[in-house]
């Protein structure tokens, strides 16, 4: 969580992108100069199914305000079935977060192909706006980890 | 093109006319073909175009025996007979557009009419 001079809330968003589709899609939105906010920081993973739900919880614990997970479209996974695992695992994680009272809109799974640079930028813009509206993540943040 | 009427027919029939690949098997199999001005495949196509008034005003509407041969044989599960039935419903719902009044029925009864023609009309309740 960061506050700039105008005290407008600037959320910190962690994006996990699979190497084959979404990371390439993010690169494409860069090549096409499609803007999205600096709030989004991308972490490259080989496949969306590499993302352990623990990574997402860890990000929240360390002060992230939103986490988005991007993978290949269902049926297009480079590893043939990885994103199906992702879909199931994240459904379970999200329902657990729901149960814990964490706003559903802080987490999201999106399918972005290597050709969808525009979709990647639009998704990030929209997600950042949505998280901005929700305000800072206070429920899961571990205050001991906060930057002094 | 009458959008409301088209929507009404599509909803009443529950048929996705866009699945039709225009093979004409429905008309090829239709026993009432020669009696009809508009044939089963034309029903489907005209409903898709929203061209429903000519169907409402055509006698073809009442020549369909609802024998469901077209439904049975359509390779793409379009169910033309249900489209015909839905157009009939649209006719019934428009006041003054009824094909006949109940009073006319007794004089129309024909001893030579095959029983099946009467009975098949009830198939629409089971399909």
């Amino acid at each position, binding site marked *: 969580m960061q506050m700039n001079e105008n005290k407008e809330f600037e959320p910190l968003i962690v994006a996990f992108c699979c190497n084959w589709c979404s990371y390439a899609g*993010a690169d494409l939105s860069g090549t096409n*100069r499609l803007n999205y906010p600096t709030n989004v920081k991308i972490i490259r993973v080989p496949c969306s199914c*590499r993302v*352990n739900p623990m990574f997402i919880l860890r990000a929240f614990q360390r002060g992230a305000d939103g986490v988005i997970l991007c993978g290949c479209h269902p049926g297009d996974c480079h*590893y043939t079935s*990885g994103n199906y695992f992702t879909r199931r695992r994240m459904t379970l994680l999200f329902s657990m977060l729901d149960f814990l009272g964490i706003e559903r809109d802080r987490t999201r799974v999106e399918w972005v192909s290597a050709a969808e640079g525009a979709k990647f930028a639009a998704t990030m813009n929209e997600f950042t706006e949505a998280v901005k509206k929700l305000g800072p993540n206070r429920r899961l943040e571990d205050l001991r980890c906060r930057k002094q | 093109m009458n959008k409301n009427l088209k929507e009404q027919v599509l909803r009443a029939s529950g048929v996705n006319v866009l699945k039709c690949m225009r*093979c004409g098997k429905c*008309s090829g199999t239709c026993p009432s073909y020669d009696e009809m001005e508009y044939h089963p495949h034309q029903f489907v196509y005209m409903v898709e175009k929203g061209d429903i008034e000519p169907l409402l005003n055509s006698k073809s509407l009442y020549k369909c025996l609802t024998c469901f*041969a077209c439904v049975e044989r359509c390779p793409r*599960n379009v169910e033309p007979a249900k489209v015909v039935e839905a157009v009939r419903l649209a006719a019934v719902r428009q006041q003054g557009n009824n094909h006949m009044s109940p009073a006319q029925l007794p004089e129309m009864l024909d001893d030579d009419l095959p029983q099946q023609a009467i009975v098949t009309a009830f198939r629409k309740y089971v399909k």
Partner: protein
Amino acid sequence: MQRIGVFVCHCGTNIAATVDVKAVAEALGHEPGVVISQDYQYMCSESGQNLVKNAIKEHNLTGVVICSCSPRMHENTFRKAAAAAGLNPYLVEIANIREQCSWIHKDIATASEKAIILGRAAIAKVHLNAPLIAGESPVAKRALVIGGGIAGIQTALDIAEAGFDVDIVEKQPTIGGKMAQIDKTFPTLDCAACILTPKMVEASQNEKIHIHSFSEVTDVKGFVGNFTVTIKKKARFVDETKCTGCGLCTEKCPMKKVPNEFNMGLDNRTAVYIPFAQAVPKVATIDPNYCMMLKNGKCGVCSKVCSVGAIDYKQQDRFIEEKYGAIVVATGFNPIKLDKYDEFAYNQSPDVVTSLELERLMNAAGPNGGTLLRPSDKTHPHKIVFVQCVGSRCDDSKGKPYCSKICCMYTAKHAMLIREKYPDTEVYVFYIDVRTPGKNFDEFYRRAVEQYNVHYIKGMVGKVTPKSDGKLAVQASDLLSNEQLHIDADMVVLAAAIEPDKTARPLATMLTTQMDTNDFFTEAHPKLRPVESATAGIFLSGACQGPKDIPETVAQASAAAAKAIGLLCKNSITCNPCVAHSNELMCNGCSSCEKVCPYGAITYIDKEFRMPDRTTAIRRVASVNPAVCQGCGACTVACPSGAMDLNGFSNSQIMAEVDAICK
């Protein structure tokens, strides 16, 4: 203590225009473990790379972070540079500050701040990078082709040509497949046997090609370069090595009422049989379902007449095991069963035939010796109706959803051949669309219409009713003239949809390859890798991948062979070192990882462990085969005990990145 070097690239002005590269280099220089932090105009240039190489040597670096363009662009460049300087290439990390920072942001202050964070994450990750060495696994110099149709034969010939041994496994007693049953081929009308049988002979005489006819694959183990396959050689009750194919046994066999599958059951064969005159291998086979000797021990005629003593009633199924480097699947297709299409009366009249049956009826080696006669009364038909798309392009509940692709062309061929040979015969073709994309295909179809006067009618046949006078009443609608036609036909020919062979599905399970919902094998990429399956070392040839005509099949067969040869040429394959590995001390042997692995890379081994009390215990632990693992990481998340981890993207590395970003 780590000694990390950070190198920030300007990329001309691509990065430097929006990111204050000097400030980034300065800020990252203060990160723990960083001993040198530099910026440079073009890091990927020769001199930029030299900068990195010199720094590695000079400062004895243990890790390198390059803040530049996407790793998809230059990761390999910098890995090679590091390797050249003596640093393990997997100790290089890239922070993407061009595509994912400078190009999408406009404000220098926030973009620079983000670049520092991205650099910090890469530094945090490289702290935990381990040197990785790409493993190698040997390649067995032998290929297996499953299916002996034209696809399998062509693939085998091409692989043998390159000098590698090839085994063909064919479930029928002879190779040749569907093409052997076809009479003529479109669009040139040359005879199928005349072009196929020389290829069959070539395959049998090639010393590199080994044909296992009447055999099936029953088990596949292993991985690319190193498959172990079990082949069942079914008992044919004839010693292949002794039989000369003289055919005396087939002449003398008293059991003459066996439906002849080669002629689609249109005539009969004997219980001991050779499928057709040009069969390869030309060896007799005894059909145990009909042989009286095998059924009740009475007869033995064939064994008495065989001059070489090849008949062996006691023969058993044999299993052989062989190692292969590559496997090519060429299992082909079959026409679908037409039982559920009552309206065409296929089961009610023998004069309603499928197109493949018509091929046999017209073939010189067929049941009528090449004269087209009605199967029912052996009279010459004067009116023939062809029905297209029977079971193709249907809703899923009514048949196959795809276009079978070959029917339009073979129907035009049949119509043309009939009009040519019997000009007094009227031919009607009922079509929905005529699809003729292919070299000389549309010209061929137009010739059928213009030169041979075949009646093409737009509309599907609704109903075929056998009449008491032996004719077939065909009812169909002509959609263009808007009238219903009633034709009294002598024969009706149905263009049945084609489907993959039934053996394909169990085979796909054995090979751990993917199939679509129609049981066609799925290619690795629909456009760019059309002959490879997603499983390394398994290639696809012919109609097992989708409906295809002969030229396309042959082209794909050669393409699959080229891919297989490319693999067999290598002495060993370099493996991707970013693969999963399991910590045996933590693994509980629960099988969770094995179940999610799409490649079957994980197996379980019983391993002996020393216990604290100096005893030993045997525990079941997961073991990853690095040659098969592709590094997706699905198992790492499935593992409940955290024993499974992925090289290059380990749990601690990703966590460190998360922490660095959120700091």
